C-alpha cells in the first residue's frame, strides 16, 4: 500500500507535468489558429471603415492623456536619475543624450505599449467576452456577418497603425519631461540641451521605436480579442478573460521588446 503510493507519486507528478505541457501547447496552437484566421480574413471584403475609424479613435485619441502623462513623468524622473548617477564620475553632461536614447529606444514604446494594454486589451476582452456570453457573436454569425471581419479585423488594424503615433507622442513628451527638469532644476541651458538631444538621436532609434510600437499594438489587440472571443461562463468568465488579456499582453510586450532590442541593437 505505502510502496504503491510511493511509486505512484512520481508517476502522478509526471502526468501532471505532461498534461500541463499538453495544455500549454494546445493553447499556443489555438492562439496561432486564431491569429491565422484573423490575418487571413483581413484582406478579404467586406471592409468596415466606420468600425476601423471608431476603434482608432478609442485606441489612439483616448489613450493620449494617459500615455502623455506617463511619458512626461518618466522622462523627468529618468533625467534626474541620470544626473545623480552621472555626477558620481563627472558625467552630468550625458543627461540629454542618455535620456533621449533611453526614451526612444526603450521606455517610450514599452510604457506606451503597457499603458495601452491596460486600457485597450481589457476593454476589448470585456466587450467581446460579453458579446460571446450574451450570444451576440452567435447572432452576428446567424446574420451572416463574420465576427473576424466585423469585430476583430478593425481592432487589429486600428491598434497596429495607431500605436506608432502614440509612441511618437510619448517619445517627444518624454524628452520634453527630461528637458523640463534639466533646465528647471539641474542647471542645463535649454538650447544646448535640445541641440545635444538632436545630435545623439539617430534614425535607427526612431525606426526601431516605431517597429516596436506596431508590434505592441498588434499584441494588445490580439490578446484582447483572443481572450474575449473565447470566453465562456457568464460574468465570471468575462472577468477572467479580461485579466488574462492584460497579463498576457504585458508579458508578450516585454518579451517581444527584448527580442526586437536584441535583434536591432545586439550586434
Amino acid at each position: 500500500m505505502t510502496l504503491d503510493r510511493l511509486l505512484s507519486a512520481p508517476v502522478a507528478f509526471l502526468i501532471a507535468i505532461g498534461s500541463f505541457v499538453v495544455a500549454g501547447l494546445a493553447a499556443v496552437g489555438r492562439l496561432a489558429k486564431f491569429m491565422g484566421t484573423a490575418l487571413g480574413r483581413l484582406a478579404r471584403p467586406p471592409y468596415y471603415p466606420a468600425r476601423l475609424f471608431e476603434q482608432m479613435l478609442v485606441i489612439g485619441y483616448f489613450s493620449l492623456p494617459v500615455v502623455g502623462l506617463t511619458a512626461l513623468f518618466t522622462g523627468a524622473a529618468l533625467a534626474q536619475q541620470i544626473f545623480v548617477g552621472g555626477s558620481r564620475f563627472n558625467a552630468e553632461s550625458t543627461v540629454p543624450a542618455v535620456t533621449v536614447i533611453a526614451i526612444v529606444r526603450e521606455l517610450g514604446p514599452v510604457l506606451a505599449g503597457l499603458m495601452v494594454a491596460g486600457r485597450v486589451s481589457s476593454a476589448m476582452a470585456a466587450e467581446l467576452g460579453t458579446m460571446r456570453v450574451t450570444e451576440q457573436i452567435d447572432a452576428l454569425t446567424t446574420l451572416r456577418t463574420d465576427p473576424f471581419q466585423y469585430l476583430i479585423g478593425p481592432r487589429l488594424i486600428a491598434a497596429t497603425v495607431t500605436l506608432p503615433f502614440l509612441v511618437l507622442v510619448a517619445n517627444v513628451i518624454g524628452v520634453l519631461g527630461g528637458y523640463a527638469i534639466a533646465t528647471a532644476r539641474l542647471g542645463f541651458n535649454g538650447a544646448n540641451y535640445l541641440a545635444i538631444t538632436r545630435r545623439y538621436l539617430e534614425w535607427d532609434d526612431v525606426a526601431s521605436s516605431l517597429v516596436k510600437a506596431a508590434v505592441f499594438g498588434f499584441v494588445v489587440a490580439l490578446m484582447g480579442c483572443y481572450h474575449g472571443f473565447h470566453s465562456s461562463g457568464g460574468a465570471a468568465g468575462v472577468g477572467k478573460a479580461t485579466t488574462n488579456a492584460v497579463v498576457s499582453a504585458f508579458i508578450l510586450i516585454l518579451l517581444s521588446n527584448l527580442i526586437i532590442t536584441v535583434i536591432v541593437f545586439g550586434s
Partner: protein
Amino acid sequence: MTAKIELARVSKRFGRKTVLDGVDLKVEPGESVVIIGGSGTGKSVTLKCILGLMQADAGTIRVDGQDVTHLKGRALAAHRAKFGMLFQGGALFDSLPVWRNVVFALTQGRWATGSLRGLAIDLLARVGLGPEVADLRPAELSGGMQKRVALARAIAAKPEIIFFDEPTTGLDPIRADVINDLIVELVRDLGVTALTITHDMASARKIADRVAMLHAGRIVWDGPRDLIYDSGNAYVDQFVNGRAHGPIDTGVGNG
C-alpha cells in the same frame, strides 16, 4: 415532398454530459412546429445545431433535402441565409441603436441610409413598438421590449425559416398575444416555416400546427396541436398540465 428540416438521430455532448441523444424531427414546408420540454433538455442546442452554430456529434441534419450537418465557409453562409433566429436572450448588439439592430440582416454592419431606418420603424410597429424606440440603445429597453426588437430583427430579411426561442417569455399576456398573432400571420400569409420553443402553453396552442416534446435527449412525443391535452403520453401530460409529480424527474422528491 421533401421536408423543410429533417433531423435524424442527432446527438450532441458537452464533455461527459450528453444533451441530445438521437433526436428525430421533421418539419414540413410552411408548417409551424413547437418544441416543448423541460429546462436544460437541449431545445436551444437543437436550434443551434441546425444553424451550424454548434456541430452535432452524430446524426444528420437536412434542410430542403440538403445535408447541412458539416457545412463550412460559403456553403454554411448560404445555408444560414434561409434562417431568421430569435435568440432566447435577445442577443441584441448593444453598441448599435435599436433601428440598426433591426435592419442588421440587410446592412450586415455596413453603413445604412435613411430608407432602411423607415423599414426598421415599420418592423418595430409589427411587434408593437413605436418609432420613439428606434434611436435608443438596447440597454435602455425593458426585457420584454428587447425581446420584441430581437423578433423584428429576426424577420427583417424575410427568411424562409424562422426559429423563435421562447418568443413570449417575459411579455405580458396582451403583448404575448400580439407576438402569437404575428407568428401565425408569418406562417399563414407568407408561407414561412416556423420552429418555436416555448413554455407558454397558451402560445403553443395558438401558433402550433404540431407539437414535439423533447425529454432526455429525444423527441418522446410528436403530434398535432389538438392532441396535446389528450396525448396518452405520460411525459406530455405532466408537462402541459404543469405537475411537479410524474415520470419527469424534477429533483424535488418524486413520488
